[in-house]
């Protein structure tokens, strides 16, 4: 009987479960609540976009999910495991690639660095895995270069390759394309689509760009208000493969985009 319940529970557990997360900085009169009671799930192989205006505490939420920050209340579960510190099945792509990559390591060594802690990986396997994931982001021949010898977009690709080599079940991306130019941005968005198709991962993408949230997401979680709460969870039923020109010019896409925008507007303005 007990065993049956456990089995059943494992079957239905989403990849990531966020229940009633809130975060307050400071105490007493100076207390400032950033996040208020946020609940949602992210399922296997799903891309969930978290969109909201700048300063809405999206990064705070992401840091709670990554186990880098302890929420004031509420819990985060990765499958059945309560997240209290960074879990092994989770990787993060940070916004600022120039600071998240180690400038004293080559591109290859940057991607290999997190693999050193993975149990049971030999040096050759580490090397091979890093090379493979660099190839999958189109940087197969740049392993010997240093991050600062690459363009911004390429540096962010290295950061993505580093996350992929880690082979997480959940990939968190914090405004990953906010610091690159428009052309590079759409290239990287399409790269994210390819990654999603190739790897079995749940992707959580934090962004302030409404169009991007719809283009990349299977669902869009709209966040706004002070303290920030979930305004609406919008399903995006646009079929794959999606592409920059045709998908973005469909009526469906335009409607979803307008809908998400209006959701953010009504709650902030």
């Amino acid at each position, binding site marked *: 009987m007990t065993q049956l319940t456990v089995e059943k529970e494992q079957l239905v557990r989403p990849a990531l479960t966020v229940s009633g997360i809130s975060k307050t900085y400071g105490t007493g009169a100076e207390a400032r609540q950033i996040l208020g009671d946020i609940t949602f799930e992210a399922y296997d192989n799903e891309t969930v976009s978290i969109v909201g205006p700048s300063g809405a505490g999206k990064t705070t939420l992401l840091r709670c999910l990554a186990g*880098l920050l302890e929420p004031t209340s509420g819990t985060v579960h990765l499958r059945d495991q309560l997240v209290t510190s960074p879990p092994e099945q989770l990787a993060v792509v*940070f916004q600022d690639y120039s600071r998240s990559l180690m*400038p*004293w390591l080559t591109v290859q060594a940057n991607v290999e*660095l997190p693999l050193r802690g993975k149990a049971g990986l030999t040096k050759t396997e580490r090397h091979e895995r890093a090379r493979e994931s660099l190839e999958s982001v189109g940087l197969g021949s740049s392993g010997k270069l240093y991050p*600062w010898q690459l363009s911004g977009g390429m540096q962010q690709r290295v950061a993505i390759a580093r996350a992929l080599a880690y082979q997480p079940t959940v990939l968190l991306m914090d405004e990953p394309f906010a610091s690159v130019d428009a052309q590079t941005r759409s290239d990287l968005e399409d790269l994210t689509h390819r990654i999603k198709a190739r790897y079995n991962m749940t992707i959580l993408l934090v962004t302030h760009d409404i169009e991007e949230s719809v283009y990349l997401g299977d669902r869009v979680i709209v966040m706004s208000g002070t303290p920030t709460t979930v305004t609406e969870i919008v399903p995006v039923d646009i079929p794959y493969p999606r592409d920059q020109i045709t998908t973005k010019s469909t009526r469906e896409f335009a409607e979803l985009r307008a809908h998400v925008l209006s959701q953010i507007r009504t709650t902030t303005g």
Partner: protein
Amino acid sequence: MSTEAIVTATRARAGKTPKRRALTIITEIWLPILLFAIWWFASADSTSIYFPSLQSILEALGEMLTQRFASDIVPSLQNLGMGLLIAIVSGIAIGALLGLSPGLYRAFQPLLEFMRAIPGVALLPVMLVIFGIGSSMKIAVIAFGAFWPIMMNTVDGVLSVDGMTREVSKSYRLSRFDHVLRVVLPAASPQIISGMRLSVSLSVILIVASEYIASTEGIGYIELMSARMYQMDTMWASLLLLGVLGYVANVLFRYVEHVVLRWHRGVRGNTQGGQG
């Protein structure tokens, strides 16, 4: 300056081609050679006891290098190297430890500031009493004096490691070992190396001072003894040798810095050039 000129200037600084390198060397050594030549001819007929001719100084230097190499020059360099090595290893280790445990650092800070304020040479009599005349005393004095700049700069460097860098380390669950050796220390290496640069000059001062105080060997000892015995050519020769050694140490150090901090120059070059 036009864009083209900036590009050319950058290339010249990079000095990649042999031709450019030769040019760099020539621009750096023409003045020393000229001054040397002036010294040589101006002092040629010198009758002053205090300022002998350069020729006799160089002869004394040659004699020193051949006859007193093993007995005096080697010990000086050995003690210098040993003291510096101890200072570097312990300075980086203790600096990293304190930088990574802010509580410990705050507790130790007043004591460290006090100890650091003691001039290295002030420890000469103390070390003399403890270790007696010999290498140990000199090594201890150098190690003590050279330790502080390295240790303090390591603490500074470790404390100023970017928060994002720490976050990456944490989220990818790097082991403590990898975090310190592959993330924190490389990130702090520009500060650590500038501390080491200070320590190298300090330790040259300390080795000479320790050889003045109580010693029967060393370049400083030769200088002091020859001055006392009015062997002015040997005195000047030892001074010349000390200058050359200091210069060579600096060149070697610059080379190490060039290799170790290649990434740092690269990053800086990028952020400065990123404006255009």
